[in-house]
């Protein structure tokens, strides 16, 4: 019996507002415990929530960017349960009437495009954090994070493989970054994902028993956990066992999912409309304003890069994974418009490498680039104009990364201009050949690999500045001609 997987993802995105959703405390990460708190977000007696306007604006951006229908009236609901990091004993969320429904995100997996539906988007408040391992018999609670605004984005169970899930998650993150509502950092917890997965006989339309997987702290974890879980469920069903509907945790060390021991009987959250918050009404004017202020979204930008700069899909994909990266690329091209593909190569290989090495992409916006885009453009120009070799350019790039200097400046200061003068190079070649007659003879006898030796010698003599293509031509000509 062939089975297929049915996967849905529930994503929580921490919003980049200055203050919390229902009070004026700071949302900045990294403060000392309980230093970004007030009576409201710590659930003191008598406190009341007041909604942060920017949270709604961010939700509207996400709604429009994912083609959802905006509910002009949405309602706040209380989700009631007890936990030490949930100060009021309930979370203010949305239940029956969320702000957005019925959207989609387009993904590409192995060159196949697919549309993943979004069931709903709503706003809610985050809980605080508990530390369980400081003591054997006690936990410590920090409420700095309590009240930080979250967007909950629920997908339809449209994904059929872990790769599709990964692609969806990445696409969604990119969208959220582009509209500047979330920095999408799974490792730091600003983007969280729970997965729901079941399997069913291929061709069936009924849904199998759904298992929820939590504790997924990276994109890789999501894909790995799904692979594991699908296999586990498959094995269970083929041996005649039943799959229980439950929540399982991903154990990254053991690379397996394990059952969460049931805490209480199945949660009864007793949702009801929050009496302290009146219905949220969003006017058509506001929606139009937000729509008008949306930046060019990733898919549109990819298309445009391909069209305008004649880039292959792969390049466009990589360059648009981050909005600021795409901005950087286009700024570099503006500095030197003649060879956009070359600039793309440089960005993808060298600039991205440095960014990843130095972890410059942890936040929403890369504030420190390896070098300014104009400098990158200049570097490509210098290669294109034959002033420096490709190899030299790589060295200059490293220098640019550490020194902030423009490539022209570096070339001038270090006298790195490529030697492309045929006469000058010919002289060098003659000198080298004259100095190694035995090797010349060997080469002519058939050891063609020795070409590299001669290239190396000339490069040494010219401090690496010999134009490689010209040098190759000259060497070959001279090595053969003087036969």
């Amino acid at each position, binding site marked *: 019996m062939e089975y297929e997987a049915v996967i849905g993802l529930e994503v929580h995105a921490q919003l980049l507002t200055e203050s919390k959703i229902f009070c004026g405390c700071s949302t900045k990460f990294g403060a000392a415990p309980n230093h970004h708190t007030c009576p409201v977000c710590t659930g003191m*007696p008598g406190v009341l929530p*007041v909604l942060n306007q920017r949270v709604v604006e961010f939700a509207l951006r996400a709604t429009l960017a994912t083609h959802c229908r905006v509910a002009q009236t949405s309602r706040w609901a209380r989700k*009631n349960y*007890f936990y*030490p990091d949930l100060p009021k*004993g309930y979370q203010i969320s949305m239940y029956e009437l969320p702000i957005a429904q019925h959207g989609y995100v387009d993904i590409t997996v192995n060159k196949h495009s697919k549309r993943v539906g979004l069931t709903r988007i709503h706003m809610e408040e985050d809980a605080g954090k508990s530390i369980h391992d400081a003591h054997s018999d006690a936990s410590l609670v920090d409420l700095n994070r309590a009240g930080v605004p979250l967007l909950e984005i629920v997908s339809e169970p449209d994904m059929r493989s872990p790769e599709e899930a990964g692609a969806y998650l990445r696409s969604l993150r990119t969208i959220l970054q582009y509209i500047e509502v979330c920095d999408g950092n799974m490792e730091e917890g600003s983007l969280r994902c729970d997965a729901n997965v079941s399997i069913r006989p291929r061709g069936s339309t009924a849904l199998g028993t759904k298992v929820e997987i939590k504790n997924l702290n990276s994109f890789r974890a999501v894909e790995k956990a799904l692979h594991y879980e699908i296999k586990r469920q498959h094995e269970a069903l083929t041996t005649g066992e039943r799959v229980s509907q439950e929540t399982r945790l991903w154990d990254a060390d053991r690379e397996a999912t394990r059952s969460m021991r049931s805490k209480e009987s199945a949660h009864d959250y*007793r949702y*009801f409309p929050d009496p302290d918050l009146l219905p949220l009404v969003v006017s058509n004017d506001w929606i139009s304003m937000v729509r008008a202020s949306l930046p060019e979204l990733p898919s549109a930008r990819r298309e445009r890069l391909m069209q305008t700069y004649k880039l292959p899909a792969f390049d466009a994909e990589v360059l648009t994974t981050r909005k600021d990266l795409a901005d950087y690329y286009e700024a570099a091209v503006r500095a030197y418009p003649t060879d956009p593909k070359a600039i793309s190569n440089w960005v993808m290989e060298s600039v991205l490498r440095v960014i990843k090495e130095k972890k410059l992409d942890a936040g929403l916006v890369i504030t420190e680039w390896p070098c300014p885009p104009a400098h990158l453009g200049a570097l490509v120009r210098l290669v294109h104009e034959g002033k420096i070799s490709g190899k030299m350019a790589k060295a200059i790039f490293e220098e640019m990364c550490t020194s902030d200097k423009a490539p022209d400046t570096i070339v001038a200061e270090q006298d790195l201009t490529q030697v492309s003068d045929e006469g000058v190079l010919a002289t060098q070649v003659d000198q080298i050949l004259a100095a190694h007659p035995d090797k010349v003879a060997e080469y002519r006898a058939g050891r063609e690999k020795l070409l590299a030796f001669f290239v190396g010698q000339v490069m040494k003599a010219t401090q690496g500045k010999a134009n490689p293509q010209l040098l190759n031509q000259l060497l070959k000509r001279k090595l053969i001609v003087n036969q």
Partner: protein
Amino acid sequence: MDLYRLTIHEATTLLRKREISARELTQAVLSRIEATNAHTHSYITTCDHSASLQAAAADRRLATQDPLSPLCGIPIALKDVILTRGLRSTAGSKMLAEFTPPYDATVTRLLKEAGAIIIGKVNCDEFAMGSSNENSAFSPSRNPWDFSRVPGGSSGGSAAAVAADQALAALGTDTGGSIRLPASFCGVVGLKPTYGRVSRFGVVAFASSLDQIGPVAKDTQDCALLLQVIAGHDPYDSTAVNLPVPDYHATLKSGVRKLKMGIPKEYFVEGMQPEVESAVNRAITQLEALGAQPVDISLPHTEYAIATYYIIATAEASSNLARYDGVRYGYRAPQSDGLRAMYDLTRAQGFGPEVKRRIMLGTYVLSAGYYDAYYLKAQKVRTLIRQDFLTAFESCDVIATPVAPTTAFRVGEKTADPLTMYLSDIFTIAVNLAGLPGLSLPCGFDASGMPIGLQLIGKPFAEDILLQAAHAYEQATPWHTNKPPL
């Protein structure tokens, strides 16, 4: 003259003329409390030391500033569900017996800004849940007119303190009648404003869509003065409306001529204490004599109000009281095996029986499978109840009713069966469900000398009309000059 017997308006005049000082006035009230609190148990906490400091500050303001709020230098008591920064606020419960809030309720702040003197925190049913003050964890308050009787609840301490001249006025809260019932039982004036008229920020929440904070005072003029200070928009309370606050004093003496007074037949039914019924009827006649025009009206869904209320209020309360879990403040059970046990024991030990009953009921009506049948149904009936009033108000300006079916009952009389206790809210409860303003003022005494109250119900945000009608009646009658023999 015993300074503690003064009303706010009388005291203000003397203070402005510098014939008395805030210090003297405060001292007089503190001495009065000391002499009489053992009988009435009105106060849970008195502020002897800070009151003197506040009085000194008030005297300085009185000496230099103009214009000043009429509340400057006036000793006011706050129901212990109203938070006061740095001053213990217990909500009448063991759960918060040692809780010192790090912030002031908005109404507290407004009073302080006006120069009022917070003289102490008065007794109430635990978490404002009750109609007799017998659910307090702190020696329940007694009626100053007869110590063997209850002062009413849940703002029992507020009403007792005002009736016994242990404060010039007080603030209480009203969720189902908790200002109006004790005001009626103690022979003072109590006003529950329109929902949204006064900020709830910093007041321990019982039922969020029903709670309101309001004045308990010796007469209608004082009531107006106090309401003036606390009414208004608050950026910290999303349900406090942004509507201008009228000058309540300006229209106070406008009288009741041509005022249409609705008399709902459903509020004059069997089971009322006969003296209560006749006193209220006489009051209505008196108002007619003053120029009000009685109009027969019907509020057909009245009999469903109690059931509706107890579903909605307990549901909201069960959620509002979830924060009392021993984690961040308040009582924590000393010995427990793990977190869940800590929760269970803390709440079992910190809450009294009535609070637990209501939390249980509220949790039940919200739980899976019961939400539609109870909570949702109740909210729909609530709409019908509100519509009753709004329809009635098309043909009248105020509605006149009794406040309670009886006068103050004896301590212990109704505690055996909670449902019996709930039924004493029958005339007040629908007003909260509809979010309307309601005022209780004295309209007579029964044969045992216990006060009887008249309720006036108004259109949304028409507290000025209520006060004006109440004032006209009050000034034509002697009840407001009566004092308990204390």
